[in-house]
Each structure stands twice: as C-alpha cells, then as structure tokens.
C-alpha cells in the first residue's frame, strides 16, 4: 500500500509539509487521541472537585451562612467512631475482594479458557447473570437466604443438626455482604481475565510445548507475565469498586446492624445528604479518594506501570 500517487505540481511544497508532519505526527497524535477525556474532565469535573475541596473546609447545611473551620472536618474525622468503623468495614471488604473474589474469578477464567472444557459460552453467560439480576429480586432472595432465624442457609444447617448462625448480625454481616458482592461481581472479573487470556499469542504456548515445558511452567512463565496488564486493570478497578461499595450493605442490612456493615461511601452519603453536612461529607469524599489513589498508585508501581522500558 505505502506509495501514494500525488499530482506532480503539488509535490514540492507538499514535501516540506509532509516531512514536517511525518516527524510531528507521532508527537501530536497521542494528545489528540486522549483529548476527549480531558476536555470533558475540565468541563464537568475540575470545577466540582475544587468546589468540594472548598466545602470540605467549611461546615454548611446547604443554606444560610458557611462556617470556615480550616482542617476541622478532617481532624474531626480522625476521632469520629462511625467514620473509623466504616473505614475498617471498607478495608475488610477490599481485602475480601482481593483474597476471595479475584482468585476465584481467575480460576474460573483459566478453566473456561482451557482446552479441557467445552460449553464455554454457557459458563461465560451464566457467571454474568448475577449483575443482570434486579436489586429488588436480589434483595428478596438474599434476605430469604440469610435471615437470622428462618433463612435457607439456617434451614439447611438445621437439617445437619448445626444451630442457626446469625448471618445478619454484627459478627457475620460483613461476610454475608462479601458473599453478595462475590455473587454479583465475580462474573465480570471472569470476563476481564478471559480477554487477557485471549490476547496471549498461542504461538508462545506452542513454542513452549516444543521446548517441553509442562502445564505449570507454561502458566508460570507465559500466562502470568502475559496477563500482567489485565491483572493490573482488574486490581485497580477492584480496589476502586470495593472502596466505593454502596448498594450491597444497604440492600442486605441497611448498613447495620449498629453500622457493622456500613461502608465509607454509605457514610459519605449519610453525612453529605441525609444529614445535610455538606462540608463534612466533602471531607469524607476527599479522604476516600486519596486512600484509593494511594493504594492504586502502589499497585501501579508494583506492576511497573511507570517503568520506561515497559
């Protein structure tokens, strides 16, 4: 395809422009390609973010005079028992997502991707169904499953002669919330991992087989390194998702009992909206964003996302 036909008259002045463009194109083009995001970011997000930062230095119920408190909201946070409780709950969910949901999703993706298995489409769609189940239906079903006295799990345990467990009380409610989150979000992570697995060139495996590498060696030296970009994506997105977890604790236990399942995002909403503490809510939002940012930065660093040779 390379050579193009250009009329001879324009060829001279065109050559200067072309030569310039062929040098400049690779420098300019990436900025053009990424510009839509930044234009929309400047229009829709920068202003609100600065406004939220400004609000976080004040106490204000949304009307009447604003009271400037400097960093007062932030220092109050450090001694706010419910904030600390919801921070711990949120960390609990995030840890649970990383040690439970992600390995499960990876395992399922590997199995579906392996030559061992047929019916791949069935499993892909089946694992995706939870996220399509309506919240009302899911709530109804999970309350029936987890109810402290009459739930299906406890009915099952009773058949085995095991006394009922209080799935929605303080000790176990976080595990129940995590189970609902696993049910809902495992499938989507299976899809992510599958796209990563699909992008690994098959010739790599073929070459390894020729060299006599076993299944484990192939997994260790081909699959894992090749999966790195998608694993980083899944890691960061899971971090963000679990720190912003909002619906599941409300659906299952209304954030309770006694705030035992409340997340930071729930608490942010309670303060900023239900209680109309706009400044305090903004402070929680900024702290939450900074925590996620810090943890994501660490992940990016560990995955070598900033390395020049990448």
């Amino acid at each position, binding site marked *: 395809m390379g050579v193009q036909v250009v009329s001879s008259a324009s060829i001279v002045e065109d050559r200067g422009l072309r030569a310039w463009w062929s040098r400049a194109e690779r420098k300019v083009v990436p900025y053009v390609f990424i510009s839509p995001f930044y234009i929309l970011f400047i229009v829709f997000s920068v202003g609100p973010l600065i406004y939220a930062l400004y609000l976080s230095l004040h*106490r204000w119920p*949304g009307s*009447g005079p604003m009271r400037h408190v400097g960093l007062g909201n932030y220092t109050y946070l450090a001694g706010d028992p419910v904030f600390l409780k919801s921070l711990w709950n949120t960390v609990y969910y995030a840890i649970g997502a990383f040690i439970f949901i992600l390995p499960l999703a990876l395992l399922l993706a590997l199995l579906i991707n392996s030559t061992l298995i047929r019916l791949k489409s069935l499993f892909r769609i089946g694992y995706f169904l939870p996220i399509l189940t309506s919240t009302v239906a899911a709530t109804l079903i999970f*309350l029936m499953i987890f*109810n*402290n006295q009459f739930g299906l799990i406890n009915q099952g345990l009773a058949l085995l002669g095991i006394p009922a467990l209080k799935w929605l009380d303080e000790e176990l409610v976080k595990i129940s919330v995590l189970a609902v989150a696993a049910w809902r979000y495992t499938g989507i992570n299976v899809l992510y991992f599958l796209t990563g697995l699909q992008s690994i060139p098959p010739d790599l495996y073929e070459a390894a087989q020729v060299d006599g590498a076993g299944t484990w060696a192939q997994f260790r030296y081909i699959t894992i390194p090749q999966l790195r970009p998608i694993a980083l994506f899944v890691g960061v997105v899971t971090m963000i998702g679990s720190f912003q977890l909002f619906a599941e604790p409300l659906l299952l236990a209304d954030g*309770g009992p006694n705030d035992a399942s409340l997340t930071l995002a729930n608490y942010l909403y309670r303060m900023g*909206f239900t209680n*109309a*503490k706009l400044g305090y809510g903004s402070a929680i939002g900024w702290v939450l964003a900074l925590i996620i940012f810090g943890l994501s930065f660490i992940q990016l660093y560990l995955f070598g996302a900033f390395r020049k040779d990448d």
Partner: protein
Amino acid sequence: MKRSFTLFTTALLLLSLLIGAGTASAQDEVTLTIWTFGAFFTDLYVAIEDDYKEIAPHVTIVVEEIPFGQLYDNLQGAFVAGVGAPDIADVEQGVISRFLKGEPGLVPLNDLIAPYEDDYIMAKTALYAHQGAIYGIDHCLCPVVLYYQHEIFADAGIEMPIATWDEFVEASAALTEQGIAALVLDDRSWGDYYMLLLQSGSPGLFDAEGNVIVDSPGNIAVLEWYLDLLESGVAIATGDFHATMGLFAEGKIAAVIGADWYAGSLKNELAEGAGNWRAAPLPAFEEGGSRTSTHGGTAYTITTQSEHPEEAWAFIEFALFNEDNKILEYHVNNLLPPVLSHLDNEALLAPDPYFDNQSVGELFLELAPEVPFQERGPWFNEATTLVANAVFEATQGEKTAEQALKDAADELRRQIDFG
C-alpha cells in the same frame, strides 16, 4: 320539564365557561411543578388534574415523579444551586429534617393552615415543624392500631380488644405456650420503639426547646419494657419484612402495630389472608391512657423558589381539603385523610371484607383526635440513626437500655455541637 332543565343547565354551563374563559385570559398562565415519588401520589394528581383545570383554568399542573431518595438529593441540589426546585414537593417525614437546617428552602405554612386548625389534625404538622414554623402539611393521618389475626386469639381464648399493655402481655402467655408470638417488633430499627414512645406520652427524641431527651427516664423505661416484650417471647423480631409476612401467613405471629398504610401492605402482600384480620386500638400504657400513635407520612411543601406560592397553596387546598379528592387518594394509596370532617365519609366507614367486615374506618375516626403530638426538628435523622443502634445494642444485650440510650444521647449532643 326535563328538557327545559337540560337547557337551563346547558346555558348555565356555557355561561360559566364564558366567564371562566374571561377570567383565564385576564390572569397569567401559571405552571405548577410538583415533585413526587411513587405512583400512589402521581395517580392522585393525574386523577384530579382535570377537575382542577375547571376551577383554575389558568393553572397547569406538571407532575414529575422521581424515585424516593433521588428526589431529595435533587431537591437539596436545587436549594444549593438556588434554581431548579419545583413549586411543590412531596417530602416524606423521614427525610424532612435535612431541609430544616440553615435557612430552609421551604415556605412556612402556618398562616395558610391556620383557618383549618379545628378540622386538620394539627399533631401531624409537628413532624415538619421547627422553631414554630410549619414547613409541611401531611397527606396522611397515619394513625397506629393493632392489626391482629382474630382466630388465633379466639382459639387461645383471648378476648379482643384488650385495654392495657399489661393485660395484653398477661393474655399472650396462652399464645407463647403454643409457640406463637403475640406481636412482632423490630430489634434493629427505631420505628416500632418510636411509635410506642409517642403512645406513652413522650414527645419523642427532643423536647419543645429542642433539647435531646433520648435518655430521659420515660424514654428509658419504654425501651426497658420493649426489651421485656422481646425477651419474654411475647414479641418476636424477625429481621425483615419478608420474614414477617411469611410468619403471619403461617400463623406464627398473631398481631402487629402499624399505621393505616400497613393495612394496604397486608392486603397487598397477604391477599389470601382476607377475613383473618381485624384491627383494635393499641392497648394503653395505663387505664384510660392513649390508644394510638402515628407512624409515617408525607407532606406537601412549597419551596421558596416558587414564583407562584399562592397558586401552589390553592392546589394543595384543593387536593387536601376537598373530601372527594381525599377519598380518591385513600383508594389510590390507603392513606387516611388527616382531616376530621373527612373521616366519617361513608367510603371510609364501610365494612372492610379484608378485616372480617369490620368497619376499620370507625376505629380510625374514634382514634383520630388522640394522635399524639411530637417534637422533631433538624436533628431528627441523626437522632434516629443513633436510636436504631441503641435499640439493637440493647436487644442484643451488649448494653442495658439505659446505657445504650445514654451513649446515643451523648453522641447526638456531640453531633449537634459539631453543626
């Protein structure tokens, strides 16, 4: 004769139309926007829209239905923005307190409701009031009664209604023996406790000066009694609404305290229980004491951004004080009118087959003047969150009732100081 009458009325109608058209052109066209949640209010507005057009031809009603939750986030956004609020908003009692902080974006309605003060159940305005200003007028009386499955009580040889709670507790031993709970009460929320608190004569969680009374001796005593009901097995906590409905159906729970709208829930969720249920006044805390409480409600409010507050009130008046409209609303959403002169309407007093042909309306009419007064104000949401936790801590035995309420009260005072 008949013909001339028809002619006469036609002429009258034409005349009135002409006059109506004349006045309409004289007045500016007004559009009133109403924000509401849920079909059960939208259906009412849609149903009365045309009638209102005849009364006020220059007014156009635009109903914007926004799901519960988002409605109030958007309203808050509009108040902060200073633009974008509707003329009228339906504000549910559980969310009003956030709009009472700072300089409320709602119009005080004291002067407008004043002419109705003998007919309207003024106790219902207390839910939406702060420092003497009334910001909302409730759609609903929401009186609380005891709904009970009459055969369960009859089989156990218990005669209903029962006058006092002490007698109720004593009688329910016959049910407890059979593994039936007389009552269902929530162990992780504030609603049931609060209903009983109001019935006991407490103004709720605040006094008239806005002081926190969460840990007052009276409030502690009611919670201790509440715990006794649960511990003795007279009452059971089920964990959620679905389990409660299932246990009603299985006859494992005999009765429940609930407002007028709870009857709607029963009819909807337990349609096959028709005829099993009856309603009675709440047993009183002492002989001759109050026999009802109130639970829930949604108020008409007018925003300060409205350019037509007079027209907005005129429409609310039409929806709220026109008896036909209130009866229509009752059929749409089961909410009883908070207006005394409407409560003796035949439609409300008719025997109700779901309730074994009892006239439940008669009971409500009798109890309406007893609906208790309460104090709320801008910190009510903070208070209920903490009280819900206190109820849970106490029912779990983590703290005594007194300790749980004292801790909740201290934390509440701290949050109020914080501002």
